[in-house]
């Protein structure tokens, strides 16, 4: 738990602090110092220096504080006890006692899985190995809590005792939140359980206890394990616990650098705990106490008092894990939002962990690239490869070079170095950046990447000030900012010629299927207006982009739309075996000049093919034609391909239907993801060479072999959109919306990206939609603001703690006005010699992004099962390494998670359960291939919500509130049949309606009188003039606005057939296809870790 803190970001702390002051300072002050040392905590929290500090204090303080508050005291003991218990192993988080309690009563769902706990043997079932399970649970419980605590065990134990309890409660126990919920729902104060891990069991119990304990629970959260246990006793009293975990994070802030994590944690917990009492209910919403906790709690609870309560969590004998007790993504997200969403993220300091992607924050560029451009799995990387190997934490950066920025943030400045071109290091060719060191009075500079000493050209000379900085440093973006652009000289252009403005070519399938569904008509109609919105640069009045049109079925039809013609002319090319472009002049035209002809063409296309009977299509020749057209026009550009069916006509790239579900789970499964023939790769290569990016819109009625068709878009930096069984009435809005966005979005062409690093590490692997002809240059025929490239780094030498590690990502591209530019992003990272530092500065979301991409690429070459195992093993190794090297000694039965990674298991489980890695019966091969390629270029925010969907209750919050309702965890248990929920994952959007929703609500939203009259599968909400309808529709709109693709709404009724589909996205539950529930998986993970440790 504590660990989590890392994240907890400063900001939040800031706030909380005020409150704490009293507590912390006094008590902690001293301790903190000491605590800091108390390794354990430190370690945990560790992540962010800043935070860490706080934490320590927290910790240290905590104790005292805890002491102070009655609860705390109670906890303290508990805490210890807890540990003790945990240590013993079995004990899960605190919950134990409580848990039991709860369970019994609650026997309810949750418990069952985990059940294993000794106490309730019966329950245990979950994981195969009963014994383990037991342990696990125990551990878990311990873990969670401990998570935070873990490190410090002994000391902490003591220290914590009190604090922990608090802490624990808070931290881990995000549960608190849960509890909260319980309270509402039921009594369950236990919140603590959540704390994490094992805890679950506890959670349940919590409820039961809740009644009694509610308060305590809160306490529990934090230090999960420790406290937990204790709590029970107290806790329950102390319910507030839930916070603990969260708390942990806050502390960090409070504390100064010195102590890292732990310290802080301590303190925080208190906070929460304090708060909890009062709040619990509220918090409920936010189950996942984990990170987030603080924020929530923080604010609400400000008052430290709660501590006591915390204890709750740990308490009980671990039977099953209480779902509320295990780390909750929701809580973590909420906490981060509250803590870090308010103040701008200033990039001046090296190695800062940015706020979560789910948090809204502003960025001030003071020398490092904004996290919108680059996010790293860790902001503190090991100095040596040995360490890196030991930790197994992948070092990767997720780069989105052309990310779009919120209006408040300025886009990168364009720097013009004149004819000589951008200033670069002579040896490694790195571009001038803020980290370059000027020496000898400014006459030379030393390259920060390769240490080469270069002369400063006379025209660039400037004097240095007393600090060795150039006097003009702040006048020059390349000397003061993390991201900026250079104007490229002709040397950076193909054939040493400045590029011509790019072109868009629309290539429309006009075979029978496309005509029948009305697609062609719809599309042509839309294009007429859409052409006015082609991307343009800056304030340009009209877009420089030229357009061209092609239709095709078995043959291709090109159109001459030269402005001087009265009528467009069609040119049919039927030599598909040897494609070429039949015309040059008049094919690519300026929209405004040829508007009349284009309009006439678009009017006529649907008519001309209205009677077509041609059902066969070609594919490769179409792209080839587009590519050739661009080649002939000597420009880069983008093809928009609208395609309906498997290309079975005789032509290069002809495909056959090879969909075979029997291959699933066999060694041959990988072939389903591989292209059928090499023709597609070859073609893609040619496209890349020409700067021809391909966006593919698919409208299949049946198998179209997305795996093969998407090869070209994939390798050229394009996008694939798929609208299965397209019908104009139902899918029009979605398609048009995607199309509009796709056409309008800013895009760069003919790009080459290169990532340079300081000596010691280097980029070794790349994931995303692009092509590489050598090992270093990422070639992108096209690159838009949604595309992400994930880069993995490996050591090839030692790094230096002092100088840190630098990344420079340089992207050479042609802007949509045809200007050749270089966009540079710089990022400085810290280096560490202590593993704890690494774990304290990790970013789980980014890690998951990397791991998902890694795994999704893996399925091309290895059996899916092997890929899954690799993921699990790697995750286990990461966590085991932490446990071994960073956590304070504790019983093996405890599951201890680094604060920063406490969500790793749940997220990883989501990845493992995803359609690609574990297909359900209803998932088609095409869908899997589609998702696979989508994920490949997703950024962190997208993978985050894609793997762990957002579930938003609609009627919980007051109707007047304009903010998004707090999310709930993606589990069926969280659904109340009296409520409605929106679920979205970036691709899908569901509105789930509980069976017993109030009639009034039904009426005001659906305009029907009862639940039974709601049409299942409805995709549009009626426009009604009442607050609820407005609010819901507004919410849906705002959700859509956040995503790069339009999400079609599907209304799902409880107990309806469609619900199966919906449940697929409740990722914390067991899935029909065999995916483990969160709790089960956590136990399993714990088992794996234990095996590694032993």
């Amino acid at each position, binding site marked *: 738990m504590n660990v989590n803190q890392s994240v907890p970001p400063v900001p939040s702390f800031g706030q909380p602090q005020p409150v704490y002051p009293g507590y912390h300072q006094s008590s902690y002050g001293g301790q903190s110092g000491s605590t800091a040392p108390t390794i354990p905590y430190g370690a945990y929290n560790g992540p962010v220096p800043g935070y860490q500090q706080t934490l320590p204090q927290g910790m240290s303080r905590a104790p005292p504080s805890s002491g102070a508050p009655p609860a705390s005291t109670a906890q303290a003991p508990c805490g210890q006890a807890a540990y003790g218990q945990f240590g013993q192993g079995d004990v899960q988080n605190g919950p134990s006692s409580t848990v039991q309690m709860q369970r019994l009563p609650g026997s309810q769902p949750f418990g069952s899985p985990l059940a294993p706990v000794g106490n309730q043997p019966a329950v245990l079932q979950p994981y195969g190995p009963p014994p383990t399970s037991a342990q696990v649970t125990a551990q878990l419980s311990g873990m969670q809590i401990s998570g935070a605590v873990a490190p410090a065990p002994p000391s902490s134990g003591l220290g914590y005792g009190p604090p922990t309890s608090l802490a624990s409660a808070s931290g881990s126990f995000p549960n608190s939140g849960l509890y909260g919920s319980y309270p509402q729902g039921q009594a369950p104060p236990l919140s603590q359980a959540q704390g994490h891990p094992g805890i679950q069991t506890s959670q349940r119990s919590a409820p039961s206890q809740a009644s009694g304990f509610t308060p305590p629970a809160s306490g529990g959260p934090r230090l999960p394990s420790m406290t937990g246990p204790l709590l029970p006793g107290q806790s329950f009293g102390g319910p507030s616990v839930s916070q603990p975990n969260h708390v942990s994070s806050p502390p960090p802030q409070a504390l100064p650098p010195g102590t890292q994590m732990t310290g802080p944690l301590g303190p925080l917990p208190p906070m929460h705990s304090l708060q909890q009492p009062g709040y619990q209910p509220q918090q409920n919403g936010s189950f996942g106490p984990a990170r987030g906790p603080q924020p929530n709690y923080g604010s609400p609870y400000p008052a430290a008092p709660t501590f006591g309560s915390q204890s709750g969590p740990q308490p009980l004998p671990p039977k099953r894990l209480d779902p509320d007790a295990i780390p909750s993504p929701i809580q973590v997200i909420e906490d981060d939002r509250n803590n870090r969403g308010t103040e701008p993220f200033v990039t001046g300091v090296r190695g800062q962990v940015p706020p979560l992607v789910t948090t809204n924050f502003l960025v001030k560029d003071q020398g490092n690239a904004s996290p919108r451009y680059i996010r790293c799995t860790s902001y503190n990387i090991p100095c040596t490869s040995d360490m890196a190997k030991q930790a197994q934490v992948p070092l990767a950066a997720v780069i989105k070079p052309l990310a779009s920025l919120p209006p408040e943030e300025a886009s990168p400045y364009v720097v013009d170095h004149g004819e000589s071109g951008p200033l670069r290091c002579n040896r490694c060719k790195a571009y001038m950046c803020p980290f370059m060191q000027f020496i000898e009075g400014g006459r030379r500079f030393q390259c920060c990447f390769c240490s080469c000493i270069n002369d400063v050209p006379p025209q660039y000379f400037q004097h240095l000030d007393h600090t060795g900085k150039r006097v003009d440093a702040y006048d020059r973006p390349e000397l003061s900012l993390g991201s900026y652009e250079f104007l490229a000289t002709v040397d950076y252009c193909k054939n040493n010629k400045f590029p011509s403005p790019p072109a868009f070519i629309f290539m429309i399938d006009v075979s029978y299927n496309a005509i029948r569904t009305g697609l062609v008509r719809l599309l042509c109609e839309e294009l007429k207006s859409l052409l006015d919105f082609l991307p343009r640069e800056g304030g340009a009045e009209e877009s420089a982009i030229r357009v061209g049109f092609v239709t095709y079925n078995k*043959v291709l*039809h*090109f*159109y001459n739309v030269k402005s001087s*013609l*009265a*009528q*467009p*002319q*069609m*040119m*049919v*090319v*039927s*030599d598909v075996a*040897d494609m*070429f472009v*039949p*015309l*040059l*002049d*008049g094919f690519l035209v300026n929209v405004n000049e040829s508007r009349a002809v284009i309009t006439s*063409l678009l009017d*006529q296309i649907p*008519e*001309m093919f209205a009677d077509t*009977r041609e*059902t066969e299509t070609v594919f490769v020749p179409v792209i080839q034609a587009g590519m050739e057209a661009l080649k002939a026009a000597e420009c880069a550009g983008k093809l928009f391909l609208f395609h309906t069916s498997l290309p079975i006509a005789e032509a290069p790239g002809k495909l056959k239907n090879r969909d075979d579900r029997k291959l699933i789970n066999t060694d041959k499964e990988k072939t389903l993801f591989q292209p059928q023939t090499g023709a597609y790769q070859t073609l893609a290569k040619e496209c890349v060479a020409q700067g021809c990016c391909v966006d593919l819109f698919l409208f299949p009625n049946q198998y179209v072999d997305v795996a093969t068709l998407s090869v070209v878009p994939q390798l050229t930096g394009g996008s694939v959109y798929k609208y299965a069984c397209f019908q104009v009435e139902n899918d029009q809005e979605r398609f048009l919306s995607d199309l509009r966005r796709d056409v309008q979005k800013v895009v760069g062409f003919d790009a080459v990206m290169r990532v340079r690093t300081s000596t010691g590490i280097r980029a070794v692997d790349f994931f995303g939609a692009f092509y590489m002809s050598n090992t270093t240059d990422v070639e992108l025929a096209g690159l838009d603001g949604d595309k992400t490239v994930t880069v993995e780094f490996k050591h090839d030498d030692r790094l230096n703690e002092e100088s840190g590690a630098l990344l420079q990502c340089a992207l050479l591209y042609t802007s949509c006005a045809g200007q050749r530019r270089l966009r540079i992003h710089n990022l400085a990272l810290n280096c560490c010699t202590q593993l704890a530092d690494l774990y304290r500065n990790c970013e789980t979301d980014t890690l998951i992004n990397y791991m998902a991409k890694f795994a999704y690429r893996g399925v091309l070459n290895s059996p899916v099962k092997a890929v899954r195992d690799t993921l699990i093993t790697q995750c286990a190794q990461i966590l085991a390494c932490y446990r071994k090297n960073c956590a304070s000694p504790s019983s093996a039965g405890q599951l201890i998670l680094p604060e920063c990674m406490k969500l790793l298991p749940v997220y990883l489980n989501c990845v493992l359960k995803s359609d690609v890695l574990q297909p359900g019966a209803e998932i088609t091969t095409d869908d899997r291939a589609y998702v696979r390629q989508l994920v490949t270029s997703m950024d962190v925010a997208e993978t985050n919500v894609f793997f762990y969907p957002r579930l938003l209750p609609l009627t919980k919050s007051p109707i007047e509130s304009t903010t998004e309702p707090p999310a709930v965890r993606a589990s069926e248990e969280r659904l109340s049949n009296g409520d409605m929920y929106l679920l979205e994952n970036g691709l899908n959007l569901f509105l789930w309606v509980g069976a017993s929703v109030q009639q009034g609500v039904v009426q005001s939203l659906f305009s029907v009188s009862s639940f039974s009259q709601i049409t299942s599968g409805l995709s549009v909400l009626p426009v009604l003039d009442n607050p609820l309808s407005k609010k819901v529709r507004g919410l849906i709109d705002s959700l859509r606005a956040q995503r790069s693709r339009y999400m079609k709404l599907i209304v799902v009724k409880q107990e309806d057939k469609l619900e199966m589909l919906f449940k697929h996205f409740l990722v914390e539950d067991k899935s029909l296809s065999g995916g483990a529930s969160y709790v089960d998986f956590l136990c399993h993970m714990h088992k794996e870790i234990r095996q590694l440790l032993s």
Partner: protein
Amino acid sequence: MATYLEFIQQNEERDGVRFSWNVWPSSRLEATRMVVPLACLLTPLKERPDLPPVQYEPVLCSRPTCKAVLNPLCQVDYRAKLWACNFCFQRNQFPPAYGGISEVNQPAELMPQFSTIEYMIQRGAQSPLIFLYVVDTCLEEDDLQALKESLQMSLSLLPPDALVGLITFGRMVQVHELSCEGISKSYVFRGTKDLTAKQIQDMLGLTKPAMPMQQARPVQPQEHPFASTRFLQPVHKIDMNLTDLLGELQRDPWPVTQGKRPLRSTGVALSIAVGLLEGTFPNTGARIMLFTGGPPTQGPGMVVGDELKIPIRSWHDIEKDNARFMKKATKHYEMLANRTAANGHCIDIYACALDQTGLLEMKCCANLTGGYMVMGDSFNTSLFKQTFQRIFTKDFNGDFRMAFGATLDVKTSRELKIAGAIGPCVSLNVKGPCVSENELGVGGTSQWKICGLDPTSTFGIYFEVVNQHNAPIPQGGRGAIQFVTHYQHSSTQRRIRVTTIARNWADVQSQLRHIEAAFDQEAAAVLMARLGVFRAESEEGPDVLRWLDRQLIRLCQKFGQYNKEDPTSFRLSDSFSLYPQFMFHLRRSPFLQVFNNSPDESSYYRHHFARQDLTQSLIMIQPILYSYSFHGPPEPVLLDSSSILADRILLMDTFFQIVIYLGETIAQWCKAGYQDMPEYENFKHLLQAPLDDAQEILQARFPMPRYINTEHGGSQARFLLSKVNPSQTHNNLYAWGQETGAPILTDDVSLQVFMDHLKKLAVSSAC
């Protein structure tokens, strides 16, 4: 009997036939000693306003190997209703329809004046004529504009129900679909890729799609029969459309960088045109009309690369074997030509450019299919415009003067065999008893296919006398030849024209005088010239000349009267007197001399030489020169430098050129403007006279000759100077002591020198 001259003329007018010998030597051995082979010039469709076609079908000899048509030479047994074939002597029953036949009630084909008769066949579906325009778009703007106008104009000249199609080419080849409204639609092909007919048809969607499987619905049937109609539409339906389409034709839009030729895919365009017709209308009369403004520069059939710095092949290159694309290109076009011929279509080539356009390589397309070949400097000249217009002229019946898909079948009586034919035709490879083993021209067959012909198309047909010396033919015996021409009339009817001729046999020993007197030296000159030109296509120039010389010498030896070794005693009879002179001019003609002519020009000249009738051919061999002066009415004068006088106006007709040449004095008068002075109106008339005469020639001739108006000292005077016999040159300027005429600066021998040598050689016993 009238003179042989009259006989010859009468035969020509009636039958369109001119024989080199009108009395035939009766033995093989003697025939070979005659030097000039027994041969004839046949104009199968010679216009016969007085010959209405009969509305029934011909009666054929029942012997399968014969199938000769009943003709006036057959012996008829009116009572038994039998007739004996005069070629194979098979006795045949008359068909029932001839039941009423009797001495006084003869069918036309038995009347002697119907030695040539035309039958109209009612059977068979009539399909409309087809005109497929294949248009080069790599032209200069005004050239293209002129061409477009010509094409648009031609639409109004076509028969309304004719099908018309359009293919344009440049770097790409576009086949325009004519049926659609709104958007104009075309199929585009890469200009560098040779496609098989099957591929072309597939790509144009002409093959019956394998759709029935998916759509066995009854909807379709109507569509398929005329899938091809998308590309070939009746003129009356789409002339507006097509006019617009032609109007919108743009120049080939692909940029041509400096120092390059535009990329022109003539080879592929033709191939597609051929494939298109092959797939849709095989064995139906169709014209592919290729309009090109430059050499093919890419793809199969390319003649020269696109680098301007490498000039197109010249005769020099060809002799040095330095024309790298020639063989391949020729092969490509030959393959196309043969396919086209097999389908019964013909290819016209209209090439207008200042430089060569690859006619050398493409000539076979026109030569083998009976298409036209027109060469000009630009489409924007009256030469092209009027020539093109003249293709669509109509005859006295209002029918187009063109016929399609003809086969010429020749039958001979036993003493003769067929050695071959020279003209715009291809062999059908029909072997038979009357086919000789010795080939002259296109031989080895008794039937030829002529895909396109007009009333002037003339073929040289060569025979061999096979009667053995020891099997004399009875006195008064006659040899017979029957020409049967099946063709598609421009009214789309199938017709058969049958010409049956007979000539007397004569024993050379006893009747040499007869044979001599019946020698047609004009026909002989043209027939020998055709042989010479035919050889020149495949042999080295000097070899052909040597061969011609030897033949001439042998002829003179055979028929001249002289004392051995005494050149001055040499005399030729009237019927041979002009022959050496024809040969002299033939040797100098562009048909055999490539000097000063590009390969394209040579091909062009030879093309026309091989299809024009006797009169025109003679003009080509020996141009006609008229002289206009105040001394009297215009008169033909010797084609000699001595005819070039200062106070004369000369009008020369070489067939390809009409030259009006003003003598020195006339030119000065002209400059002085006397023609504008009322008192010198007679001068004005004098100036006008040749113009009017030239105009007359221009009106009648196809293709339009190049019209040259020049004067003494004018650069264009070279056309005249190069043709006249150089009796005065810089070498002998004063030797002759004449004051008249103009010296020609040349080293060529003059006719006088030529004759002197000829006489010497003829009388010498050495050879």
